[in-house]
Structure formats: structure tokens, C-alpha cells
């Protein structure tokens, strides 16, 4: 405990030295560029983007308690901490399945946030049936030739590398012929098209491969054994997405409580609308329950009392919670929530509307609600199939 307190002081000193006030506003899209770059570099140098990774791969080498202290302090001062797909998903997967060469080649770049990664899993025809993917990799000497298409690839237009599921054995059953392979995005034969969503933005891209190339030694995990690797990666996605929603929502923004209070007004210290009041309380309790349940799941998984599939509960309830929050915001705002662009609405109102629209994606990406419930029924509850 004493050590932990001295570590806390170390973090606070670091923050005092490296985090200017203008950045202490949470993850906002409009942060000043140069200070952000400097802060990010300082954080990366300590390995604190990836605090739990070993130092030799660019990590911070911290234990779980220290990591918790670090995260708590960062949150307390509203430090902007981007959490790119590379760190959250690829890192954990490479640590578990990568060769020593792969780790040394890729992890430091991820840890310094110097190399941007994107994920090539879904395909237009595959949807929830991920294993039905058709994107193929044919061996040609010491390289694979990649052909096909990936969809829902966020950040593909800015990524340096992609971790991509491809079919390497065309005769095996659908789950047994898949490999996870890494290759560079900046090469001939790769085309990226942004996908406009119902919220009017392009969070995702579609990527087309026409004889793109990947080195054969960039396959992660066993050849044709990529399905196991991918499933593990998706578990990470489910756990981290639901555990870190606080970061995703963005802390500097008006909270849902503040929003409802402002839109609906107070009456003798009580929200003027009794029905929205109960909905708001129910939403806050749900959020609390989700946070606690994910914390507990982490404790129980670590202690070996549970399998990782419990993350599926977090994923679908997180989606429920996000949708409920945005529905609540919309209902509190009334027609004020129906603006799209231009004059007549506050920028914050327009942003809320678009976030409401985007919130519908939460129960689809990263495994639909239906897939999560299938997983719980089968793996957690042991119902027959």
C-alpha cells in the first residue's frame, strides 16, 4: 500500500509536468494539436499507454493495482487518453499468440501510439456469421496474395497496418481454414472507401483487396488456426468496450443527468417530470450495475471462478444502456432533439441527435445482441443446442 501511494505521487508529478490545463477536458475531438502530440509522446515514453505490458515491448510494466492507480489519476484530471484499436485488441492478442519476432516488431509501435492499426474482420456477406468469411490469401513464395473485401473497418483510411482474417485453407470446414494475418495498408492493391452511416458521419470504411500482399511470417497464431485467435480477440473487445464506456462517452460533456435537469426543469428540488425522473434513476442504476458487474467479472475471471464469456453480458447490456441513455436525452429534448445541421439548433443539440443515431450501432458491432445472447445461452447457461 505504501508503494502504491508512492506510485500515485509519481503519477501526479508526471501529470503536473506533462499535462497542460487546456488538455484537462477529457477526450474531445477539438483538442489543440501540438500540446496533444507532446502529451501523447510523454505518456508513450513512460509506456503508460499500455501500462500492463512488459517494459521490453514498450509497456509500463505495471501490476494491476498500479494500473488502477494510473487510470484513476488520469481520469481524475480528465486527461485525454485515446484508446486506439491497436492497443485494445491487437496488443492483447499479440501478447498471447504472437511469436517473439512479431511482438518485438509490432508492440513498441503500438505502445508508442506511433503505428495505427485497423481491424479487418467483417465482410459484406458475413455479418454475424463471421466464420463464413470469403476474403482469401493464397501462398506465393514467402508471401500471401490477398483478395476480397472487408467492411466496418474503422480508421482504415488512416491506418498503417491491418490485422485481417483471411481464408488460407479452402477445403477445410468454415472454422478451420481461417488465419489472422498482418500487413501494411500503404501498398498497391488496397482501396479504402468510407461508409456513410445514418448519423451522417463515416466512422467505418470498406476495404477492397486486389492482389494485396502480406509476408507469410506475419500470420499470428497457427496457420489455419485464426478462428481461435479471433474469438479471443472478440472477447477482449467485449470486455474492454463495456468496461471502458466512461472513456468512450467522453467525460467533459454534459452528463445525461445535467441534460435532463436542464431540459425538463426542477420543481421543489425534484425533476419536474415524474416519469422521466424514474427513467433517469433507472438508467443511473443500470449504469452502476453494469460497472460493478464488469468489475466483478474481471475479479472472478482472474480468480478462475468464471469463463470469459461473461463479457457477453456486459456487451449487450452496455448496448442497452447506451441506447437507453440516448433515447432518454431525445425524449427530454422533444423537438429540440430533431435537428440535423445549420441554424436553429445549438451545436450540442445537433451532436446529441447524431450520437443518438450512432448509438443504434452498439447492439450490432462487435457481435450483435443476438450473438451475445446465443453465447450466454450456450457457454454460460449450458443450454442444449
Amino acid at each position, binding site marked *: 500500500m505504501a508503494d502504491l501511494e508512492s506510485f500515485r505521487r509519481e503519477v501526479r508529478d508526471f501529470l503536473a509536468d506533462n499535462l497542460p490545463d487546456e488538455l484537462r477536458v477529457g477526450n474531445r475531438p477539438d483538442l489543440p494539436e501540438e500540446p496533444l502530440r507532446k502529451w501523447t509522446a510523454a505518456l508513450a515514453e513512460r509506456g503508460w499507454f499500455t501500462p500492463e505490458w512488459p517494459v521490453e515491448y514498450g509497456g509500463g510494466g505495471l501490476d494491476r493495482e498500479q494500473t488502477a492507480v494510473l487510470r484513476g489519476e488520469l481520469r481524475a484530471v480528465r486527461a485525454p487518453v485515446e484508446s486506439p484499436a491497436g492497443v485494445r485488441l491487437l496488443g492483447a492478442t499479440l501478447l498471447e499468440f504472437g511469436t517473439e519476432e512479431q511482438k518485438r516488431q509490432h508492440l513498441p509501435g503500438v505502445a508508442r501510439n506511433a503505428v495505427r492499426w485497423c481491424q479487418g474482420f*467483417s465482410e*459484406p456477406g458475413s*455479418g*454475424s*456469421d463471421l466464420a*463464413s468469411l470469403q476474403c482469401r490469401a493464397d501462398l506465393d513464395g514467402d508471401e500471401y496474395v490477398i483478395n476480397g473485401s472487408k*467492411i*466496418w473497418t474503422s480508421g482504415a483510411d488512416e491506418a498503417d497496418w491491418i490485422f485481417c482474417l483471411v481464408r488460407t485453407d479452402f477445403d477445410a470446414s468454415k472454422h478451420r481454414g481461417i488465419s489472422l494475418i498482418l500487413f501494411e495498408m500503404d501498398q498497391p492493391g488496397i482501396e479504402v472507401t468510407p*461508409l*456513410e*452511416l*445514418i448519423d*451522417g458521419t463515416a466512422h467505418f470504411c470498406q476495404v477492397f483487396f486486389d492482389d494485396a500482399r502480406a509476408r507469410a511470417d506475419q500470420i499470428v497464431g497457427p496457420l489455419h488456426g485464426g478462428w481461435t485467435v479471433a474469438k479471443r480477440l472478440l472477447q477482449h473487445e467485449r470486455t474492454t468496450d463495456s468496461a471502458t464506456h466512461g472513456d468512450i462517452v467522453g467525460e467533459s460533456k454534459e452528463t445525461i443527468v445535467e441534460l435532463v435537469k436542464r*431540459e*425538463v426543469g426542477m420543481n421543489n428540488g425534484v425533476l419536474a*417530470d415524474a*416519469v*422521466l425522473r424514474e427513467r433517469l434513476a433507472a438508467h443511473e442504476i443500470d449504469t452502476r450495475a453494469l460497472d460493478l458487474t464488469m468489475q466483478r467479472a474481471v475479479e472472478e475471471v482472474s480468480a478462475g471462478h468464471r469463463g470469459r464469456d461473461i463479457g457477453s453480458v456486459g456487451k449487450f447490456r452496455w448496448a442497452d444502456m447506451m*441506447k437507453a441513455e440516448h433515447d432518454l436525452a*431525445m*425524449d*427530454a*429534448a*422533444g*423537438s*429540440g*432533439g*430533431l*435537428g*440535423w*445541421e*445549420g*441554424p*436553429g*439548433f445549438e451545436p450540442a443539440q445537433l451532436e446529441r*441527435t447524431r450520437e443518438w*443515431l450512432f448509438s*443504434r*450501432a452498439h*447492439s*450490432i*458491432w462487435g457481435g*450483435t*445482441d*443476438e450473438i451475445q*445472447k446465443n453465447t450466454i445461452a450456450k457457454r454460460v447457461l449450458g443450454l442444449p443446442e
Partner: protein
Amino acid sequence: MALTLSEDQQLLRDSARSFLDDKSPVSRMRALRDERDATGFSRAVWKVMADLGWLGIQLRAEHGGSGKGLREVAVIMTECGRVLAPEPVLSTLLLGANAVRLSSNEALKGDVLPAVAAGQRLIAFALEETGRFDPYAINTAAVLTADGYCITGEKRYVLDGHTADQIVVVARTSGAAGDRDGLTLFFVDADTDGVEIVRTTMMDGRNAARVGFAGVDVGADRLLGNAELLDRVLDEATLGLAAEMVGMAEEAFERTLEHLKEREQFGVKIGMFQALRHRAAEMFAELEFARSLVLDGLSAVDEDRDDISLSASAAKTQANKAARLIGAEAIQMHGGIGMTDELDIGLFFKRLRAADITLGDASYHLRRFASLKGY
């Protein structure tokens, strides 16, 4: 109380559907949106609607109409809902012109209604001032002057306000915001001095405006009525909007069913998954319930029953419930592709929610229903 359409009404529906499918598929609304069209709808289509007799369908013959009922207007609105037609049927016909039609200002009727029926006049309805629908929460003031009134205030979410030739404005001649008493409806030319119109772009591609009244003089002959008229106009418009929602929800549901029948996952059609089948059955039930309450509400108006307001609030409550469920499930069941702007289903999702909020969400209408029932 007829819960099914008469033969004539079925014919009207079929001809409306075939006209709209042909001349106004969803792609038309999408193109207007993408081009940020200044009008936001097609004046040519509006003219054809007039020629087809739709715009005067519930007006008396002397006003260029064919003397049908609200049910006929609703048949047309349902079909417009199916293709998301952006023409100002709700705003001009059921809000603006209907306030004139239902008033006792005969001079104004003679001037306005024939022009509406001919498709030559667009009328907006300037009511709302707050985010959540609350038709009596009016601060806009109408102060008595020598030859009429002087109106000052600001209105929001005025549907199709940017193209209106004339505006029905709800102002307060006495009392305070929240009072039903003291509300008065005036008829104002959009080009009167002091009227300021700023177009706003809505998420569902509809067109609306903020309309400011900076001391606008209006003659005493432009007075339409009081809160009683307001309530009746809103009841009829609410039922018309609910009918439009039934059309939108029906189309969104049918497109989703098609997707369930076509899309394959894990080697089978996804419509074979029982969880989705059961949810589809729920969607169907909500839609059928909405249809029944809307048809009943339309009968209430056309038969001049004494439960018009009650039926209107019941119908809108259920239309909202169906819209919310079907909108959400339409996206979810389409999966990732349903989140893309490329597919039309997202347009239905947005329009359903906007219609849900417009003229009162479920909470508003539940409370109104409760009050009308005496609890």
C-alpha cells in the same frame, strides 16, 4: 364505426399508391435531401396532388373540394408515409388550412381554401415554443391595437415554415404560459413586416423553420378562433400524422420482413431464427393495434363522436409505440447494413422517430388521455 376502408376508400388508396410508387419513390426524398434542395419538396408533385383532387378532398364543393372526410386525407397520408413523400400535406392541409376550414371566418375560407385545393397556397402553423410538445405553453403575445392585434414572439419547429405563403399563429391575448384560456389563432401573411423566417434542417429530411414575430400587425378580420379551435386542429392533425406513421411503419416492417426472408447467416435464412420470429410477431401486433386505433379515431372525427380527443391521443400513443419498436427493430434486424445511409431503412427510422416526437410523444398523449378520462 367502420374499421375497414370502404370500396371508394380502397380505390383511393390503390390509386394513391400507384401514383406515389411511380412518381415518388423513396429515392426522390433522398435526392432532395442530398441536394439540400431549397424548397425541400417538389412543387410539381404538389401540383399533381392538387390535380388528383387530394388537396381539396375534405373541403366543401364551394371551396373547390370534394367534401370527403378526414379518413380520405388519412388514406393519402398513409400512402405518403410509405414512400416518405416530403410534400407539406400535414402542415398545409391538416394544420394551416384546417385551422381556417374549422374556423367560423367565412370570408377567409372563401379566399384561402380554393387556393389550397388548387395547390397554389402553402400555409404553415406556428405553435411550438418549447422543446417538449406543450401546446398551451405559449408566450407569444397578441396585444390589442386600434385595428387589430400586434404579435410578438418566437416560434420553433414550424413545419414547412420556410415555404409558407401564410401562417396560422397561436398567440396569447391573456393569461400566462400554460393556460388554455387566452390562446387565440391568427392568420398572417408570411411577407408581413416583422415576420422573420429561418429555415431549419431536421434529421428526418423534413423542412421546418424558426419564425419570429417582431411586432407584427394583423387585422381583426384575420382572427380564427381560440383554444377550442386549436384543440380540434391538433386532434385532426394528430390523427393524420398517426395515419402517416402507420404507412411508414408498415413499409419499414415489410422491408424488414423481406430482409428476414432473404438474408442468410450460418447457412439459413435469418427469418428462421425463433428469437427474430417472435420479435416480428410483436412488431406486427403493435402495428395492427396502431392501425385499429387510427381507423377508430378517424371515424370519431368523421362521425363527429364525442370522444375525438380521446381517440386521437390513444391513436398517437399507439402509433408512437409501434414506431419506436418497429424503427428500432428494423435497424437491428438489418444489422450493420441497416446502419448505413445507403439503405433506405435508416430514413424510415429517422422519420418514424421525428413523427413520434412531433405533436406529442407517448408520455404527452398518455397524460392527455388520463385527463380526458378524469384521472
